């Protein structure tokens, strides 16, 4: 019975199944993920008039953001801070993670334990991690201060100073998430066939030379994936800043990133009315920034050589 049905109405039967399998995911995903992204962009083209009625204004919000001194100053400050946040994460995580992954990729007793311990902090919330470090850096408690001064190194309340708060937070964030690039580099390194390395050894290549001429080109695609992940993730930086500094990203906006700027503008706080339309415009700008990164990554990874192992 079933068989004859399939033969007579093959297309129809298959189509209905496909619909049932896709429908729930498609509904939730479209409604609460894709639609809001595009709808936010739409909202960014509107302004509220005096009677709180939205009026289409084209690119007015974007123009105001880029040209009014008040907005532009905050925007450039947030953009600069977000870039610094990303660059610090990128420059700290990649070398350290690659180094540790290279150590782990050689036969290591207890390798799995090391990997688990190094990965453990990534499971915590950046909110909690921020507070943990705020406690450790607190001079009254002296967990960091006492040992530093014991060996003659300087101590400053790094999280509190205008000149260092952002850097300290970026370093805390790199500390927390370094487990991810370690594991990705590790995975790439152990995938390199043993024979390849042995052959190079027999040819008299040094460990250093083997790394740069054989291993490095092979892990370059992974480095690319890690870079774009770091980029997207860090232009999203918000949690630690909000947790430790609140919506005003103090001291004196020195830790204000694009995301906290977006939040403050869209949601408002004690001293500022919420402005969803302008917030949506900031989100639109962040989207453009991310898109630029993704495009750079896309063309770069097409250009580099991918080796089949």
């Amino acid at each position: 019975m079933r068989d004859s049905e399939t033969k007579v109405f093959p297309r129809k039967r298959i189509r209905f199944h496909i619909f049932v399998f896709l429908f729930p995911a498609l509904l939730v995903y479209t409604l609460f993920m894709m639609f809001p992204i595009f709808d936010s962009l739409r909202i960014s083209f509107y302004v509220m008039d005096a009677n709180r009625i939205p009026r289409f204004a084209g690119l007015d919000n974007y123009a105001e953001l880029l040209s009014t001194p008040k907005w532009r100053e905050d925007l450039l400050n947030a953009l600069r801070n977000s870039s610094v946040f990303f660059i610090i994460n990128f420059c700290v995580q990649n070398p350290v993670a690659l180094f540790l992954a290279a150590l782990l990729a050689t036969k290591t007793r207890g390798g799995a334990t090391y990997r688990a311990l190094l990965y453990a902090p990534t499971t915590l919330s950046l909110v909690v991690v921020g507070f943990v470090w705020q406690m450790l850096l607190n001079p009254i408690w002296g967990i960091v201060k006492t040992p530093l001064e014991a060996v003659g190194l300087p101590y400053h309340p790094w999280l509190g100073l205008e000149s260092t708060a952002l850097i300290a937070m970026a370093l805390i964030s790199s500390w927390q998430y370094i487990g991810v690039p370690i594991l990705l580099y590790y995975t790439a390194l152990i995938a390199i066939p043993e024979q390849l390395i042995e052959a190079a050894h027999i040819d008299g290549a040094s460990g250093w030379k083997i790394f740069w001429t054989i291993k490095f080109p092979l892990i370059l695609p992974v480095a690319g994936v890690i870079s774009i992940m770091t980029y997207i993730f860090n232009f999203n930086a918000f949690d630690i800043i909000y947790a430790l500094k609140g919506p005003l990203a103090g001291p004196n906006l020195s830790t204000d990133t694009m995301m906290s700027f977006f939040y403050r503008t869209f949601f408002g706080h004690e001293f500022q009315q919420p402005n969803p339309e302008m917030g949506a415009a900031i989100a639109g700008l962040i989207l453009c920034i991310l898109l630029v990164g993704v495009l750079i990554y896309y063309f770069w990874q097409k250009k580099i050589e991918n080796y089949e192992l």
Partner: protein
Amino acid sequence: MKTVVANRWASAGKHAVLIAFSFLAIFPVFIIIMNSFKTRAAIFANPYKLPGSGTFSLAGYEAVHGQSDFLMYYKNSLIITIVSIILITLFASMVAFCLSEYKFRGNGFFYIFFILGLLIPIRLGSVSLLDMMVSMQLVGTLLALILVYIAQGLSLAVLVLTQFMRSIPKSIKEAARIEGAGEYKIYLLTVPLIKPALATVAVFTIIPIWNDIWFPLILAPGEATRTVTLGAQQFLGQFSSDWNAVLAALSMSIVPIFIMFFVFSKQIMSGLTSGSVK
């Protein structure tokens, strides 16, 4: 002989470096948890010492318990996380089965459509999401968070599960089909075969949901729907001078997720490094 000695030194050096970094990864968390069980005097006098008979104290936990409703925060976080994770794995495995099993027009499009969410942070749609939740009267409910987290988690789940579904031999499904099983039955037969992938997806999806502060802050900031992460943030901001309470609140946010991690760490690690272990 010389190389053996050299190797031994190299190995010792390697372990020294790895131990140092592992220590750096764990020590901050360890010292917080350890001190949360001490008296206020002992926290300051001997921060590096384990709690002993004279210094052990649960004052911090009592303070947290008295001044906030952490048990309710746990309940909220658990409800959100468990419901989200069940629906994410269910919906995503259906999509994965469908995309890997049937050839139809739009197959490739749907795959890309779902994966796109990995590149676009859902937070950028918050302005519209809040509008929607207001008009659906869902602001301040756990359901609002659950819906957003399902949408957010589907991308990774579809990506991972589709890879795994594709690796399941056609012959199993064909055999079931010949025996007269319907397509839904075949889906149900296939799901147990990707259990390891489901577990990996579950763990990796739980972590960002449990740890999120953005959407609780925007969609459900009220006391009744507060999650552990938001609750901890508000509590820590408010009682920052009560050291015992702060340490206890931090420990209470850290410990459950750490327990989950160390219970599933083998699964997580092999999930991350899958495909490369030969």
